[in-house]
């Protein structure tokens, strides 16, 4: 028996090897000096499957005097010469030179990268603006000359010891030989220690004569890979290219980071280990250069079978493709009642009236969902509710732009949604607004974005999905944005003049002929610069904003359509394909790139028709999927296998409470009929010193104050305050007991208890109570001494159900 098993295994192995093709990277390489090493990467290809074989393959060195190869595929030089390394039927030719020559450590290319790799110069440690423990490094070694000063000469050379290098504070601390608040970061036996030690022993030189500059890095594998558990590792190698044409393997000097450690971890040496299925980006940084590679991890799920649902449109096709690959089960379509409630809340912010529920459910028209979607998209409520989302982003608040401007700007936004203004035009009207804000309300954009940097940062975050703020002071630690880019982009906004006329809230916005941006580090005058387009010269009478907007909305900009597409998707699905939706970066890749690409392309081709895009998403099975999970999709939070329930926003909740109780909340300073989901600003109520400290229901539920452009200003955490408001808050109490509310009117009209309970359920949850629920309520009401109070209690119970508080 045992022999049989062995034979089968052997056969199996042979079969596997028989079809396996090997690829080795790089095919040839030159190692210069004794400290350089080369990380080989071996890829196995079986049919369309790839796996990493770097650690599972035998390396045969033809001339063992020249190089040594470790089990991990790291080639180290031994003597000058050439040797082939054989790997299966492949080989690598390695040339070794200069091992016998002195090879002083390069401060710029070795010492600083090692400190970065150890995490010393991370933002949470000595790289923070004030350093830690009076030792400050520039963030991720972005300022080598400052670091040179700090490491070598600051405090009279406190940190390095040229006589006994091992006694340098720089080595004693991270090895915890002297206690170190940051803990142990360095092993005495490590290559990093040896390198830092050599550098100190050599006298801590800061520059090397005629040192070639690094001009970029390349990583391998560089294209996206799908890896299958259990073969879940992937070695990454990093090569730096220098201005003299030399290449050096810097895998042992680079920093690796995983965008999502729940999916995969990456070791200091660049070995990625899969943890769970899903997509992940591995980000590699060496000096100021950043590259990333995307890996998708797939696992065979026992018992999983693809149920092959029919897609309603291209969205479903692409979502299903991803789900199938990752073996998540697409959820069934939701029922009519759940859909009706969901689509009303998403498109209009309101619950459907109880009168429309049954009509919709009973309607036999196959197209009834599509027709409802069209109808809702045309509604006034939709325009007001979606204008409010932009109001949040554009900081439309009394504090930021003044009472009068709030109404004007909001009206403009509502009209833009109602008339379905194309998104490129919408953007252009905002960014290039000129003249009086009374005539062109979009000019108020430059009131809240009140200076050059604010205007640029706001525009970048809103329209490029990039949080570029970090690059103001240093190269962005996780992104390609450099300080040069920051000031180059700012130059587009440096010639905007804002003049207050004193006539109401009037602001005149116009372009000046002068106004320059100077780089704080170099003092250089910056020309306008945009990604991909590079430096743009804009001659004097022209408004630089026009050039920016032309680039922004043009073909040369990869971000424009994607950012808005993702934003709309995130509003509807509760989560962006890129999440957070305004944080596009390599380190934060989309969970389904083809889906985002297709949506953006559809959006662009439609002429930036947002209603078209909304319609496409709303009509997809993906949007209409039930929120009920199965064992094959309950772990999914990122790939849209099912609908993710989410709590109603503050405004939706207030309106829903008003609708169910028939006693809507009244707002100050706006028409009486205005709903919470239509408010032009959150701070219209006159300031009343006497009432400071008063708890405001909507604030408790996360209504943003509109003081930042970040969607994150809207709180989405549940809190004790919320529980208390729903338990016995004043607003809810008033609504439930209101004599003119639905409940008390129905009691006066002698509507039966059973009918009242049914109506409450229908209004709040779009469904009738189940038999058991109904029996419980009726028992309670009939046994109560005060049936009126018991009915109020019943209403309170319904409003406190998660089913009411959530959109699902």
């Amino acid at each position, binding site marked *: 028996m045992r022999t049989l098993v062995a034979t089968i295994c052997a056969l199996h192995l042979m079969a596997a090897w028989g079809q396996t093709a090997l690829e080795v990277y790089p095919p040839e390489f030159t190692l210069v000096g004794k400290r350089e090493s080369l990380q080989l990467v071996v890829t196995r290809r079986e049919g369309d499957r790839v796996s990493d074989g770097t650690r599972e393959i035998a390396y045969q060195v033809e001339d063992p005097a020249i190089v040594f190869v470790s089990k991990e595929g790291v080639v180290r030089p031994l003597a000058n010469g050439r040797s082939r390394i054989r790997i299966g039927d492949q080989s690598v030719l390695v040339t070794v030179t200069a091992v016998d020559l002195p090879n002083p450590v390069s401060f710029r290319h070795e010492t600083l990268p090692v400190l970065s790799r150890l995490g010393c110069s991370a933002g949470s440690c000595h790289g923070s603006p004030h350093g830690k423990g*009076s030792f400050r490094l520039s963030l991720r070694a972005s300022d080598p000359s400052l670091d040179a000063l700090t490491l070598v*000469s600051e*405090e*009279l*050379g*406190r*940190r390095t*010891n*040229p*006589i*006994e290098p091992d*006694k340098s*504070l720089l080595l*004693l*601390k991270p090895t*915890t*030989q*002297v*206690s*170190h*608040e*940051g*803990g*142990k970061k360095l092993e005495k036996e490590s290559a990093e220690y040896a390198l830092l030690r050599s550098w100190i*022993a050599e*006298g801590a030189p*800061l520059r090397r*004569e005629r040192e070639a500059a690094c001009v970029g890095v390349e990583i391998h594998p560089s294209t996206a890979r799908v890896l299958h558990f259990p073969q879940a590792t992937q070695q990454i190698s990093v090569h730096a290219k220098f201005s003299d044409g030399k290449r050096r393997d810097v895998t042992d000097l680079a920093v690796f980071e995983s965008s999502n450690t729940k999916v995969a971890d990456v070791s200091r040496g660049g070995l990625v280990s899969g943890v769970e299925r899903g997509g992940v980006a591995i980000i590699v940084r060496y000096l100021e250069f950043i590259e990333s590679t995307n890996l998708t991890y797939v696992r065979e799920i026992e018992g999983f079978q693809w149920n092959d649902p029919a897609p309603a449109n291209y969205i479903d096709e692409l979502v299903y493709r991803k789900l199938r690959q990752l073996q998540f089960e697409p959820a069934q379509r939701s029922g009519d009642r759940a859909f009706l409630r969901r689509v009303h809340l998403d498109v209009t912010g309101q619950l459907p009236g109880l009168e429309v529920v049954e009509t919709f459910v009973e309607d036999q028209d196959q197209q009834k969902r599509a027709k409802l979607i069209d109808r809702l998209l045309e509604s006034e409520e939709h325009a007001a509710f979606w204008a409010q989302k932009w109001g949040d982003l554009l900081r439309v608040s009394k504090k930021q732009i003044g009472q009068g401007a709030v109404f004007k700007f909001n009206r403009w936004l509502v009209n833009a949604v109602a008339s379905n203004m194309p998104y490129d035009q919408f953007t252009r009207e905002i960014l290039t607004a000129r003249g009086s804000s009374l005539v062109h309300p979009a000019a108020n954009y430059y009131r809240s974005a009140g200076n050059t940097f604010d205007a640029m940062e706001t525009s970048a975050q809103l329209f490029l999905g990039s949080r570029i703020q970090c690059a103001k002071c240093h190269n962005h630690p996780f992104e390609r944005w450099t300080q040069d880019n920051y000031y180059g982009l700012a130059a587009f906004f440096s010639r905007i003049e804002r003049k207050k006329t004193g006539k109401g809230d009037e602001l005149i916005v116009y372009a000046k002929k002068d106004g320059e941006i100077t780089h704080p580090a170099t003092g250089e005058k910056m020309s306008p610069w945009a990604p991909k387009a590079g430096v743009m010269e804009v001659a004097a009478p022209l408004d630089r904003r026009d050039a920016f907007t032309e680039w922004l909305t043009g073909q040369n900009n990869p971000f424009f359509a994607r950012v808005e597409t993702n934003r709309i998707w995130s509003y509807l699905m509760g989560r962006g394909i890129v999440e957070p939706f305004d944080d596009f970066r390599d380190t934060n890749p989309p969970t389904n790139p083809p889906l985002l690409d297709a949506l953006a392309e559809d959006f662009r081709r439609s002429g930036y028709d947002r209603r078209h895009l909304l319609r496409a998403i709303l009509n997809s099975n993906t949007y209409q999927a039930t929120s009920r999970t199965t064992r094959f999709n309950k772990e999914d939070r990122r790939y849209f296998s099912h609908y993710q329930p989410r709590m109603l926003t503050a405004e939706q909740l207030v309106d829903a409470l008003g609708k169910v109780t028939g006693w809507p909340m009244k707002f100050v300073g706006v028409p009486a009929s205005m709903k919470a989901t239509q408010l032009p600003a959150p701070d219209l109520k006159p300031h009343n010193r006497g009432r400071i400290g008063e708890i405001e229901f909507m604030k408790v539920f996360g209504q943003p104050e509109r003081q930042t452009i970040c969607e994150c200003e809207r709180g989405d955490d549940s809190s004790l305050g919320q529980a208390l408001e729903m338990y016995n808050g004043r607003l809810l109490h008033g609504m439930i007991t209101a004599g003119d509310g639905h409940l008390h009117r129905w009691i006066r009209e002698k509507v039966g208890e059973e009918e009242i309970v049914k109506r409450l359920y229908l209004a709040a949850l779009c469904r009738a109570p189940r038999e058991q629920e109904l029996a419980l309520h009726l028992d309670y009401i009939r046994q109560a001494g005060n049936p009126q109070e018991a009915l109020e209690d019943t209403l309170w119970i319904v409003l406190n159900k998660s089913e009411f508080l959530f959109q699902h």
Partner: protein
Amino acid sequence: MKCWITLLLVLSGSLTSAEGVSFSRDVAPILQRHCVACHKEGKAKGKYRLDTYEQLRKELEPGDLESELFFRITTEDEEERMPGKADPLAGAEIDVIRKWISEGAQYDGEDPAALLAVIIPMEDHPAAPESYPRPLGVTAMVFGREGRKLYTGGYHEILVWNPEEGSLLERIPNNGQRTYGLALSPDGARLAAATGAPGQTGEVRIFQSRTGRVEVTPFRGDDTVLTVAFGPGGKRLAFGGVDGKLRIVETNTWRQSLALASHSDWITAVSWHQDGKRLVTASRDKISKVYDVTSGKKLSAFSGHPGAVRGAAFHPNGEEILSSGDHGHFFLWRIKDGKKSADRAKFEGPVLRLLKAGSGLFASAPGGMVVQFDPEGQQRLREFRIEPREGAEAPTVSSCASHGSWLAVGTLDGRVAIFNTESGEKRNAFVAKP
């Protein structure tokens, strides 16, 4: 098998040696090395201090192995275990602490409030290397009384040079690792050194200048001492360093007569008024303060420096202070009200050393330069410059000393230059490296 038994006997023998565990000799070094960085005065993480016996006893019951200290170093739970984010203590280290607690957690020092770093028994410093593999920054220097000797800080030693020839005359051993301040008593008999190993120890050592013998070590601490100065008449010695405390010892008894928590950051310089009653401090906390040394009362403070203060000296009128530092300003401010009266100069970078001497005031400046001012700091008289080494940037001036018309300048790249302050010429230059 026999081997094992022998080994066990040896091991247990070492632990149950007759004299038991000594706190200062055995326990304090372990705590000092692993715990004190995070649990000390000014940074008591978890509101817990371990830097003195008195402090650590607050949470420790003698004989109780369940107590917090012992639990924290032995628990398996990595979230709870100390030292945080680091390897656990070695088995032998834990054994020492266990035994000490079991034996009653006795203290074998004099002052339970003394820092652990101070009660750890003192050993002689290691010998300096015969010849230095690399130059060492010249961070302290002082002339001998006759001007025939120049003392500079070496590695675990003080080097004595012939300033005219640049030749090494003597090496005074058994000193702290680095020397940041050197002072000669007015009678020339004693040499005081402010020393330490960065991040680990600090000492003030008193040497007999004639014999080079260590006379006394009036202070030990847990980080470097950066500045030391004899008062006029030599009765008192003032010093300060990384712990931010201004200390004064009486030179007849070598007892500490004053210890003031005067600054929230390093004290970088102290300078006496000629009346011997007042002195001025400079600190990295951007403040310079004037004290009455008899009462310990703060008389004045100037907090208008934009950066760390590295040097301060009394104006000859006794009413004002001249101070300078990282910000490059050369401020004159009034003791009376702590207000600025003048900004005498502005250098392009840090002024690390300010030296008050008979021939005027000397301020080190960026670019390897020392600028001589008149004693009032009003007129710029002369500049002395040390050229960069080939292919390198301008050196950092890290020490100065003056004697008569001589000015000695030391740099961080290990060089010493001797200038004549009257003629401005450079007399001599050498690398201060045995």
